[in-house]
């Protein structure tokens, strides 16, 4: 056995040990928790037929909904009231599909003006790490400008790029990449 092999094996052993605690191996979660196709669209569409005569509610327009602020923000984010928009490869322009979605987002943001909204710009892994941070910023900034042009308060919108560091889908094909080229929203107090 050559001396180099000895050292090499040592390298492997020590390196593997240390890295096991450090650079953990990639967790292969291929779930996409925040994609736009989540459960939002199921609730309000099936009520037409029964058409009950309006009954007077007791205590109309009670204002209790501003009490549990923290949990309600988490719930809002989880429920996906602000929908993710997607981009073409190496591109920061907002297409018609994205515009429609952003119009909905802008309406919600305007009617919930107290919240700050973070717009996270993301990229797929095909770009280089450095350039992708700049590209993610372009995407987030483009979305911010469009929302502002629709009347959302730009002072409450924060554009932050994450480059390719937070993929929605950790796969390595076009399906995954398409999900990762995105701007997603985080409602904050």
């Amino acid at each position, binding site marked *: 056995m050559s*001396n180099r092999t000895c050292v090499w094996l040592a390298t492997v052993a020590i390196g593997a040990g240390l890295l096991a605690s*450090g*650079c953990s191996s990639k967790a292969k979660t291929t779930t996409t928790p925040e994609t736009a196709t989540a459960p939002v669209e199921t609730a309000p569409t099936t009520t037409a037929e029964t058409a009950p005569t309006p009954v007077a509610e007791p205590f109309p327009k009670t204002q209790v909904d501003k009490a549990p602020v923290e949990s309600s923000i988490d719930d809002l984010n989880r429920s996906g009231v602000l929908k993710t928009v997607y981009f073409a490869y190496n591109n920061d322009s907002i297409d018609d599909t994205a515009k429609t979605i952003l119009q909905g987002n802008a309406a919600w943001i305007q009617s919930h003006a107290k919240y700050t909204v973070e717009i996270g710009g993301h990229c797929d892994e095909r770009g280089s*790490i450095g350039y992708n941070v700049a590209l993610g910023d372009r995407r987030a900034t483009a979305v911010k400008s469009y929302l502002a042009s629709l009347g959302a308060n730009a002072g409450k919108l924060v554009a*932050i790029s994450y480059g390719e560091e937070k993929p929605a889908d950790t796969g390595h094909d076009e399906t995954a990449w398409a999900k990762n080229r995105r701007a997603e929203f985080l409602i904050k107090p």
Partner: protein
Amino acid sequence: MRRAILLVAAALAAGPAGSQGEPPPPPGGVTGVITGTGFTRIKIAVPEPEGDPTLRGIAAEIAATVRDDLAYSGYFEVIDPALYPLAATSKETTATDKWASIGAAAVASGKLAPGSGRIDFRGKLVNASPATTLFERRYGGPSDLVRRVAHQYADDIVQQLTGQPGIAMTWIAFVGKHGKGKEIYMMDYDGQRVRRITSTGSINLMPTWSPVAQRLAYMSWRTGAPSIDVLESDGKITRAQTAGGTMNISPDWSPDGRRIVYASNASGNCDVHILDLASGRSSRLTSSPAIDASPSFAPNGREIAFTSDRSGSPQIYVMDAEGLNVRRLSSGDDYADAAAWSPKGDRVAYVSRRGGRFDIVVIEIQSGAVTSLTHGEGSNENPRWSPDGRHLVFSSNRAGAYDLYTMRADGTDVRRLTRGGDCITPDWSHRTP
């Protein structure tokens, strides 16, 4: 020093080395500076240091580390330790002649003295023929720094026999996944002694060593928007006073360590800026409506390479350090980024995308000649030079997930430094100041 080279060269020419059907060495002997891979390597034997049997483990680790350092340097051919007993039993009378009988032009031996909890090592480098002691030096340190002691000895051997400073005492900083975040790590240049040096719980990227001190600049999401932090060797983190905006990224130091060039969206668009650390003043160097990012300072301090997509796709450009005289460097690449200037300033390494993956290429500034150093073995990113310009460290997913590798500056002798994946954006330290 020059004399030492000549002595070794003479030994190589005279000794029995390389006589087993190999083509004869090129005529003319060894002259000038040793570079590249096409020269005759110095044949060196590195026996285990002598000492008390209880120190056997340390002795073995010193010998193995020195052998690996010398082989890695590219200057040496370490003679297989399996041959060392042949030297001992050979019929030559002197110790150096015995070593010469197995082809050794030089011998790096040593002695370990017993020391409680500390290493007390005496290294001795001799030229085999003619027999000359080139140096004898004492090294010490806490017993958990055996490798560091060996690296120091190896660097002294390199310096003595080649006239060039070694790199065995250098480090590599990089980013590794930790929990939900990506933290800054460092390790010895050979991938050993990995340790995590930040605990931010957030994403951090692209650490860059200061050329003049043991400090790192990098970009961090620890307070939300990506910003530039400077980490001191005592662990203290300070936020660089960058231009503003919501993105300040990709820092690189000026050669004097007094300024940081970086990319920022402070002007509403991603441009290259430069921060003077003493005054805290930033000025903008580019003002195109395109993305201008990933700056790299030339070692002469007068030029900056950067990435811009002003022509449509990301390409490498060079400008003067004042932002003037912009000219395009890369051509024939679909997509180029991550420029890294070689320590001598004659070449720039960068990544070029081909068929959806990145290869590392090097362009010679003078001639414009481009050489590929990787050839489609996975995707290869973020090249950075060793301080002697003879090696590059980079990340590659050739084995699945991203790990760090080094290679010689001509793309040969690829070595894997990390295992386990999610290790990216390395940077090689300058020599210890």
